[in-house]
């Protein structure tokens, strides 16, 4: 178990280092396979850790320390991993879904010039995320947190010749940095108070802090979680992050990194439970985000951005679930979401790849006829996302909504948000599906698939031309490296939810009970559970029906509320708000300082520093005579000075 955990942590790092050392000596495909194998090895390690922990009777958590870096009294800084139910669950998700996505990348990134760098970054990211979830103390959690931010920046800006990608990477990094700062401050308060970096000690002594302090600590943690998970008010970076390659969006911005915030809340739940107000604010943030994101997703025209806002919305559900105290619900939704969201992204990637990097869904109608495998897998993912039984989303989403009932008046507000959110999910997801897949192929689709109209699984003789003019023969919908992960995830999205069906069988809740027990107030009665399930499913189906009516059969036209449409298309004007709040004042202050202070005051009166530096340099330059004798003179002079010093001091 312990060896398996260490293997899980370091295998992707070994992959990164191998690719970096290999450089251009290894082929691009080899780099891809090195990365994939390393993450699969990590998955094997995660399975080993899981099985090992399963066999243990006491599952409160084992900490295995490899190396102590600093030790001062009771304060120890160690390289250690924590093996407990929560961390093994995350390890399985991260390495399992990650392995499938890296395998998919081999096909997706084929032909890119800088493929090796991509795979090095992907392995680095998997290592960072594993460090985050496996880290045995607060310091390693912070290290992993920062490293995933770095990997995200590197991968969003992977196509660095595109200015939009660079801007998006910077935006993501800066917003995450804000969250990192608040979280680090919260950790510093904890560490200063408890004098130790270990989770258990820090959380236990948090009880001695005053309520205000605990509230502030929890608020700092929430800031970090909200930034990393793209919740309001720090959510504007996620849609822009779609500039990165699609597998990056699948791995980082759907399945793993953005869920780190939920993991953080579950990991630090003792702090949150002492700052119950803040925890409920977290739930409220989640509820608000899931509504806002769902609304914005209704008008998006980029296939990846629809799925990105869907991610934002679903993470809102996870925050809602964890915020009210149902940590297992939030983690379970994290798991199923990883399955179906990665599936949706990879399916979208198959479509994008087939249409030579076209991402506008208004041009994509009817591709389902030519890509049936993609169509059915995408449908499975969409149904799971909406929460239609027996797909996985049903099992994970409904308990979250049901757990809000017993909280009081705001519980009912959350409940309503959850139901409306399910309706919106149905609408935007199937708006996407109906616009892209069924029907007659559009002009663009026909152009890329030659003359074939109904079947596309045989080799295409006409051969679609890629945008780069290579004109490769495409057999089927994509190489097996892309189709197999999609298929596996489709199966998982369909059947993966069956491990928990409250209140009948609750494997996930029982598994996580030693480390993240559900609060009593978040456990609904079975009647509340059943009624909520029915309502949510009906809301989802209603959304599907509406989408079918508008986009599928086009019987009903889109209701036109002009102001609303503009508001949604501008994403509720968050970007403009931040621009006015932060950028413009900073720019104004700096230009004011330059114009009025520097040019009027500093330059005329102060010494011309530039000229002074030049003069001093000229003086020193005269020492450089270029003559050997001069340098020997300096030697002798130096010896004389040293001798003098020795004479005087001794």
């Amino acid at each position, binding site marked *: 178990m312990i060896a398996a955990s260490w293997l899980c942590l370091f295998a992707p790092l070994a992959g990164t280092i191998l690719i970096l050392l290999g450089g251009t000596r290894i082929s691009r495909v080899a780099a891809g396979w090195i990365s994939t194998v390393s993450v699969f090895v990590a998955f094997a390690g995660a399975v080993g850790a899981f099985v090992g922990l399963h066999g243990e009777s006491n599952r409160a958590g084992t900490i295995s320390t490899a190396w102590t870096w600093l030790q001062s009294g009771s304060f120890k800084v160690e390289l250690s991993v924590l093996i407990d139910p929560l961390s093994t669950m995350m390890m399985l998700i991260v390495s399992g879904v990650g392995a499938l996505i890296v395998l998919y990348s081999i096909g997706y990134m084929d032909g890119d010039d800088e493929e090796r760098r991509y795979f090095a970054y992907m392995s680095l990211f998997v290592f960072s995320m594993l460090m985050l979830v496996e880290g045995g103390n607060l310091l390693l959690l912070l290290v992993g947190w920062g490293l995933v931010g770095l990997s995200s920046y590197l991968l969003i800006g992977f196509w660095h010749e595109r200015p939009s990608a660079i801007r998006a990477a910077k935006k993501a990094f800066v917003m995450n940095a804000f969250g990192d700062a608040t979280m680090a401050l919260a950790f510093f308060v904890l560490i200063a108070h408890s004098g130790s970096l270990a989770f258990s000690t820090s959380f236990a002594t948090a009880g001695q802090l005053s309520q205000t302090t605990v509230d502030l600590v929890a608020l700092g943690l929430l800031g970090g979680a909200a930034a990393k998970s793209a919740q309001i008010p720090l959510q504007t970076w996620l849609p822009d992050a779609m500039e990165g390659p699609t597998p990056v969006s699948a791995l980082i911005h759907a399945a793993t990194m953005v869920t780190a915030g939920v993991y953080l809340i579950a990991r630090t739940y003792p702090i949150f439970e002492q700052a119950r107000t803040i925890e409920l604010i977290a739930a409220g943030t989640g509820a608000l985000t899931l509504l806002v994101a769902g609304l914005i997703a209704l008008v998006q025209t980029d296939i990846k951005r629809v799925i990105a806002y869907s991610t934002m919305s679903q993470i809102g559900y996870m925050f809602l679930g964890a915020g009210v105290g149902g940590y297992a619900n939030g983690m379970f939704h994290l798991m199923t979401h990883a399955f179906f969201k990665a599936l949706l992204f990879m399916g979208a990637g198959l479509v994008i790849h087939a249409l030579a990097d076209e991402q506008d869904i208004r041009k994509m109608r009817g591709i389902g006829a030519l890509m049936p495998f993609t169509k059915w897998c995408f449908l499975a993912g969409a149904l799971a996302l909406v929460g239609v039984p027996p797909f996985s989303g049903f099992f994970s989403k409904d308990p979250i909504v049901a757990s809000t009932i017993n909280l009081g008046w705001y519980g009912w507000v959350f409940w309503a948000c959850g139901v409306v959110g399910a309706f919106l999910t149905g609408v935007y997801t199937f708006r996407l599906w109906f616009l892209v897949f069924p029907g007659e192929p559009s002009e663009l689709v026909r152009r890329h698939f030659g003359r074939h109209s109904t079947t596309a699984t045989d080799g295409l003789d006409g051969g679609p031309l890629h945008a780069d003019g290579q004109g490769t023969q495409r057999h089927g919908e994509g190489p097996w490296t892309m189709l197999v992960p999609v298929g596996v995830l489709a199966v998982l999205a369909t059947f993966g939810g069956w491990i928990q069906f409250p209140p009948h069988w609750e494997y996930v809740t029982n598994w996580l009970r030693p480390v993240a027990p559900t609060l009593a107030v978040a456990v609904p009665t079975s009647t509340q559970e059943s009624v909520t399930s029915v309502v949510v499913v009906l809301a989802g189906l209603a959304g599907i029906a509406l989408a079918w009516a508008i986009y599928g059969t086009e019987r009903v036209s889109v209701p036109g509320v002009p102001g609303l449409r503009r508001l949604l298309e501008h994403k509720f004007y968050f970007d403009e708000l931040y621009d006015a709040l932060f950028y413009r004042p900073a720019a104004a202050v700096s230009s004011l300082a330059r114009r009025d202070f520097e040019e009027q005051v500093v330059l005329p009166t102060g010494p011309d520093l530039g000229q002074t530096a030049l003069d001093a340099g000229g003086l020193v330059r005269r020492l450089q005579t*270029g*003559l*050997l*004798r001069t340098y*020997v*003179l300096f030697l*002798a002079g130096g010896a004389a000075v040293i001798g003098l010093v020795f004479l005087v001091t001794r």
Partner: protein
Amino acid sequence: MLGPGVAWYAALAGFLFGTGALGVLIRRNVLIVLLSLEIMLNGANLALIAFSRHAGNGAGQIFALAVMAVAASEVCVGLGLVVALHRRRLAIDVDRLSELRG
């Protein structure tokens, strides 16, 4: 020990050393610089022998012999350099030889 004490010898050695150092720092002819280096080495040798006699320890004389051997080797190589310089028609002038070229 008959005659002056070791302090006198040491002072004389210091003078020799200083004179040699002055020659190295001022003269431009490579050969004269080498000669001045020899003077410095001899000053050191004198100090060694003097203190060896003062302490009654033979190590000083051994060291002086080693210094002599090393000085001979260094002169050999240095003069070889001068010969090579002369053969390539380069100036035997420390100031001119400021670039390692050729």
